[in-house]
């Protein structure tokens, strides 16, 4: 009898237990953890080719370390079945380089770098291998509060928030990456002095986002988005409500929200079904609530400069009933929104007698025959205006971001 109940208890236990990684995988995991813990400045930690199952969060806190695989599709850390850790690899260190590595299927974020200077992320792939899914982790590659960052030639697929996300950082170059089938392909948030160029953002809900959120230590400004391809970002929004990206309609090419001094030029922007470019304020996200906004937060997008982009298609099938109805009412069943949508919110302290933004704060669209739809949300869309002449202006161009030594 005692033996029977014992066997039953064991059986019950094993049914509840998650699959056990095999001994070799556990041994490699432990080895890698120990390499990360014992690392000294100047060390290069190599990750051999192969798929390495990892069931705990990894972390690095030593500066001056390089983590290098044999290729983003060859050396893969697979976090499927991860039991603990809000990210796959968490780094709090400076002078850090990570390259030629794949990070797959983390329950939370893939690679998070929280505070550090002189960070290089090169040819790293973060992917949720099941494709877009609300249960995927939030961020693929997620540097936050870093200074002097080069993020290049990397790939992010399937993140339920942003594939490539740079937050609260300064002096940033994001170039020649590929972001596909994330909610946000590339997101630059509360960051200043960022150049985003040479990237491909396609099949996301929104292609490239430049956002400012309230209540954070650092407001963002001065981002250049150029020479990117932003194509067909029409995937249904699969992010959790309440997140900043949940307000992004499917079919958004480039979205500027509440950010200032943003320059968008020389991009190929095509077939984003809500609009190729959306310029909006925090008020349009629906999160404001009834409480007063933080006094130092500027919810208005200002000093925006769009020029020299190549637009095609887009705006033909906007996401959301309001936008759909608006589109049909104004442009007919087969018509399309113009290339740029603006919600119409302008800081009342920065407008002239006619309600137009003063020149230095203006939203300037100098892009051939591209037009702007001002949705006039502040007045319940009573006076929707379509055209280009109200936005025909120029700003001084932003200087290029210069990465500081040792990343030059």
């Amino acid at each position: 009898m005692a033996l029977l109940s014992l066997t039953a208890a064991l059986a019950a236990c094993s049914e509840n237990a998650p699959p056990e990684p095999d001994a070799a995988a556990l041994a490699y995991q432990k080895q890698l953890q120990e390499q990360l813990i014992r690392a000294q400045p100047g060390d290069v930690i190599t990750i051999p080719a192969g798929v390495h199952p990892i069931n705990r969060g990894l972390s690095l806190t030593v500066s001056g370390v390089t983590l290098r695989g044999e290729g983003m599709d060859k050396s893969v850390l697979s976090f499927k079945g991860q039991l603990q850790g809000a990210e796959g690899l968490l780094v709090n260190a400076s002078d850090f380089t990570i390259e030629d590595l794949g990070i797959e299927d983390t329950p939370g974020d893939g690679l998070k770098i929280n505070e550090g200077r002189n960070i290089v992320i090169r040819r790293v792939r973060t992917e949720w291998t099941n494709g877009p899914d609300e249960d995927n982790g939030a961020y693929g590659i997620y540097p936050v509060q870093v200074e002097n960052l080069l993020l290049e030639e990397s790939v992010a697929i399937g993140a339920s928030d942003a594939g490539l996300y740079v937050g609260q950082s300064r002096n940033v170059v994001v170039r020649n990456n590929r972001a596909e089938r994330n909610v946000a392909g590339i997101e630059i948030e509360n960051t200043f002095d960022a150049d985003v160029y040479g990237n491909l953002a396609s099949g996301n809900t929104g292609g490239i986002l430049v956002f400012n959120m309230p209540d954070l230590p650092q407001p963002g400004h001065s981002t250049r988005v150029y020479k990117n391809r932003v194509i067909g970002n029409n995937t249904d929004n699969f992010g959790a409500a309440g997140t900043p990206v949940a307000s992004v309609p499917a079919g958004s090419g480039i979205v500027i929200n509440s950010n200032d001094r943003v320059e968008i030029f020389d991009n190929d922007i095509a077939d984003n079904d809500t609009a190729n470019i959306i310029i909006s304020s925090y008020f349009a996200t629906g999160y404001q609530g009834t409480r007063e906004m933080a006094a130092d937060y500027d919810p208005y997008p200002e000093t925006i400069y769009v020029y020299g982009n190549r637009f095609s298609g887009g705006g033909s099938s906007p996401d959301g009933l309001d936008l759909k109805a608006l589109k049909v009412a104004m442009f007919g069943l087969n018509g399309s929104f113009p290339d740029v949508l603006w919600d119409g919110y302008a800081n009342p302290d920065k407008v002239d007698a006619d309600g137009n933004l003063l020149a230095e704060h203006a939203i300037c669209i100098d892009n051939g025959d591209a037009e702007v739809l001002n949705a006039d949300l502040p007045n319940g869309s009573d006076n929707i205006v379509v055209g280009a002449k109200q936005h025909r202006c120029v700003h001084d161009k932003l200087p290029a971001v210069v990465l500081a030594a040792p990343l030059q």
Partner: protein
Amino acid sequence: MCARQVAGRGAGGAIAISMRISLACKLLLLSFLCGCESAPPEVRLFPADQPPAMLSEWGVVFARDDHLALNTDVIPYELNAPLFSDYALKLRTVWLPAGSAAIFAADRELEFPVGTIISKTFHYRKASDWRSDFNSVDYAAQEEAANSVPPLDLSRHVLLETRLLVRYAEGWQAFPYVWNAAQSDATLEIAGDLKQLSLHKDGETQLVNYVVPDVNQCGGCHTPDHSAGDLRPLGPKAWQLNRRFAWWPDEANQLQHWSRHGILQDAPDLPPTELDSVQARARAYLDANCAHCHNPAGAADTSALHLNIGAPLDRNFGLCKTPVAVGRGSGDLNYDIYPGRPDESIMVFRMRHSDPAIAMPELGRGIVHTEGVALVGGWIAAMDGEC
């Protein structure tokens, strides 16, 4: 040395008595009391880069005669608001080099001298079907543990891990030791460990993937100033220690005993910490469980959510605060704390989940702390206001 003996109230026979007298006295007494054991090693400090493989070599806590015992002048302590760690019970101790003392600090941890060793041993009460290869354990309330005193009876408790924090001239270092199946000693595991438990509580059985943190993860919590990056103890703050503990013979609180005992300097005579309202208990809980990251200098300052006990109760405490990089942790909700509506508060949602993508805190909790959810949820439910 006898002058520095600790006069605790005994509960455990000869071992317990021997624990509370200094080594010199004990050497004399041992032959009378048991006559069968060699004396425990003295507490010994090792260089930061040469920690011993076995916990017993430190001589702080060790298994002996089916008990986990403390060495001479190793002082156990309790906190007012402990961190939740999957219902593990914790035996906390501190040892200071002879003749040295910690210095009182009002709003951060006490300033401990070089050579201080803090230990925390995580253990559970064995269930009736516990075996060395089947960690079946019973829930026991933390308060109950707080009223029990070392040495710990190993016929009734299973030891999982002992973490040491050691103060060197360059700063604190963390060393995680994992207890062996025989419960005779613990081995240094800088990569931590994962143990599966079957936890019986309220008539239900939960599988717990109990994680021993790796050394870097120790810093995931013990680095309350994330930019500075230095490890610090989290528990031994004045408000946390300011309570009585059954190990001491009278009603005086721990701070008073530490002062009398000569290991604490400059402590004012404080009335005991009163956590006599739901709000006080909830804020103490949030401080202990969240504020090591969620403070204005912490790793989670990226979220601008500050839950330290001195933080103002405003938007940055979560009131009607929209999330930033929350991902699936939002639970489709808009506000961290929605006054009066715990079910619409992200804070409560994240406490109710154990999925690593959602759960808060991120480290050290694999299952839901029902009582913590009830406390924080109840506090939010009683709030007035709208978002």
